[in-house]
């Protein structure tokens, strides 16, 4: 099973510096957090999707659409009932509450999609390289990216362990709370044993390839800020500026919403 999101494509987005992509991602997050009305969020989502389209990585949406749909529907439904407003829509639901639920769903989905596009267009090593350029020590950056790298390995091992125990009649979905907790043991022990063994072997492989042999190290992967990087950072910062302005003017809220 492959849980890496990165997709190898030759696109302008892929060629951008990880630092500028990280910056744009943070700007998108900030804008999304500030907006409470579905309309500006919809505009933001369209912009984000356009970037994904340029990068040709929207195929990854297939892998997370269930999660996106669940979040969208749940937020809309929950807030529709939870919040209140002035205009009755249907039954106990008011229009303002419905719009707010929609906005919350859009907000979360936009942030997830933006994150997905970042991970789909940025290699693990680029994130490491970016962190190093931002002043993080190599060992720390490497540990971070290795942790990312080990996630799929552990998920793979967990899937096998669960299948092996299910084949021996382990039924986790039945029984009370304590019996369910007890049933986790047959799954956790093998996963931990495999994880410890795997990490140990990885450490041996790293040592054997000269990890930490000397203080100065080459970074084969070259990253650098180009014109597009600066442009993207300026545009996204301007977008945030505009959002803050509109927020202060109160245009990003839903009038009449009672939370």
């Amino acid at each position: 099973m492959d849980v890496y999101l990165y997709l190898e494509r030759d696109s302008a987005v892929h060629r951008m510096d990880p630092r500028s992509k990280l910056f744009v991602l943070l700007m998108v997050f900030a804008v999304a957090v500030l907006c409470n009305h579905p309309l500006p969020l919809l505009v933001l989502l369209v912009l984000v999707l356009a970037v994904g389209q340029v990068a040709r990585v929207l195929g990854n949406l297939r892998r997370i659409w269930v999660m996106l749909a669940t979040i969208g529907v749940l937020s809309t439904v929950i807030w529709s009932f939870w919040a209140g407003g002035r205009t009755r829509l249907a039954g106990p639901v008011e229009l303002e509450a419905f719009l707010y639920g929609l906005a919350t769903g859009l907000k979360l989905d936009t942030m997830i999609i933006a994150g997905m596009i970042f991970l789909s267009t940025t290699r693990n090593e680029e994130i490491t390289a970016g962190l190093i350029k931002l002043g993080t020590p190599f060992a720390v950056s490497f540990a971070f990216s290795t942790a990312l790298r080990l996630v799929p390995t552990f998920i793979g091992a967990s899937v096998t362990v669960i299948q092996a125990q299910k084949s021996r009649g382990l039924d986790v979905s039945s029984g009370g709370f304590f019996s369910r907790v007890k049933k986790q043991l047959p799954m956790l022990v093998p996963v931990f044993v495999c994880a410890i063994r795997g990490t140990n072997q990885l450490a041996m492989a790293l040592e054997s390839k000269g990890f930490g042999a000397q203080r100065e190290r080459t970074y084969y992967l070259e990253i650098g800020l180009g014109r597009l990087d600066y442009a993207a950072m300026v545009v996204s910062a301007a977008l945030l500026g505009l959002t803050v302005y509109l927020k202060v003017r109160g245009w990003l809220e839903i009038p009449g919403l009672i939370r």
Partner: protein
Amino acid sequence: MPQAVVADAVRFQYKDQSSWALDGIDLTLAEGEFAVIMGPSGAGKSTFCCTLNGLIPHFLRGRFEGRVTVLGKDTRQFRVSQLARDVGLVFQDFETQLFSTNVELEVAFGPENFGLPRAEIASRVREALSTVRLAGMERRSPTTLSGGQKQRLAIASVLSLAPRIVCMDEPTTDLDPVGKHEVFEAAARLRATRDVTMVIVEHETEEALGADRIVLMQGGRVTGDGPPRQVLADADALESAGIQPLDVVRLFRQLGEDRVPFTVDEALELMRARGWRLDGAAYARLVAQKRPPACGDPIIEVEGLRHRYASGVAALDGVDLTVREGEFVAVVGQNGSGKTTLVKHFNGLLLPTAGRVVVGGRDTRRAGVLELSKLVGYVFQNPDHQIFADTVFDEVAFGPRNFGVPPGEITRRVREALAAVGLSGYEQADPFALTKGERQRVAVASVLATQPRVIVLDEPTTGLDYREQRGMMQLIKKLNEDGHTIIVVTHTMWVVAEYAHRVVVMKDGRIMFDGPTREVFSHEEELTQAFLRPPQIVRLGNRLGHPLLTVEEARACLTKGGQGGGRLSLP
């Protein structure tokens, strides 16, 4: 000129262990030499590999005595990372030694650590990748590579450091036959293009023929050392050391010949010279006598099965198969051909995307894993993916307890299951302290105790030495004779030849061949296309025009002189 490796009275005892893993190793390897190390599990082969680049004594803790010198450097005086430029070490498990997101960066990692200039790294990456034939895959993610490609990438990732000594610890154990072959080819190319000293730990006797020297290890000591043809000629000594002798050597020893061949071609030549021929009448008798036993009713029926993973990969593309009660079926094929995906449908771990699977009369879509598992036991490849209990008893009792078997009955079943796998008296042992072979047996016992009618075993012999493999297969054979239907997924071709009644060959998600073992193995050329190579004795039989499955069969059919019903067809 300094020797490449000098091991001088080397002893090593792992922390918290009472016996010596290495117990006085004296070994010298000249520069440019190619040595293959062979020996049973627990002989200390991997431990020895780890002494070559200083992982022992620097990384793996324990008591270290004696001295290892590589290219004149005492390994005690240098750190592992410093020795990395002299000694490249490749491990058995390729999954845990690859960590980059693309092939190029994986290979660049070593030179990066030594601060080489970018241009130099680029040229080293290119050269290393071309040596292992992965050029053009620079941008691929290692996770998308096949097993053989991954292991070759692991090799390239140490080659980029340009080490003068390359040591590979069982590089082909986890690979299918084609993957094994690719790795040996890469090793040969490496030796042809660079001046390296090479040490490979290997179980495949046939591949060891190409070495300059074979070193036998047992119990932490060197027990044999010499040119391959000298070491491999002594079939009995190999067998008692837990190593599989070459089929043709065993055959000619049994025929009472003083000279032995090492390859199929040599065997044919020697047969001609000494007047051995295949007796057609004897062969006909053999085939009649070894006909697979009659089988019962269908127990697993697969119709038009397709399976597509969530990632979009179509793993099975229209499979039809009927397994009858009492059969012993081997499912073979290259990695990724769909073998494991297929058998995971038999107890409902996977459900069909299209088509249907009926087990014991029930559609797997309507019966859960829990229910199907009572009928079909599944032994996973790696016992470490299931062992969790403090005692062997609890581990084996886990299944029956889940199925609600009463306590008295459980005790009886555990006793019987442990007796069947030859682990009687191990009830209170800690399963984590057992050897890999023993843990594999515990895993089988734990499935056996649930008393399934069908037992699926995924790669039951991988990671075991020859003696353990034989023990495991004898056990499975006995289970089959006791009435269990057996389905084995395996890469080990001699296991298929000697034990399976029927072979299902998978290729690209479809069944390519399905028939009696003897018949399937006679299609040698087509099997090669599915990247499978029958064992040496089968290939010899095919060249004689009659597929033979074991050395004993060959012995029974060969006669000297006279005119029989059969003809020896020689090239």
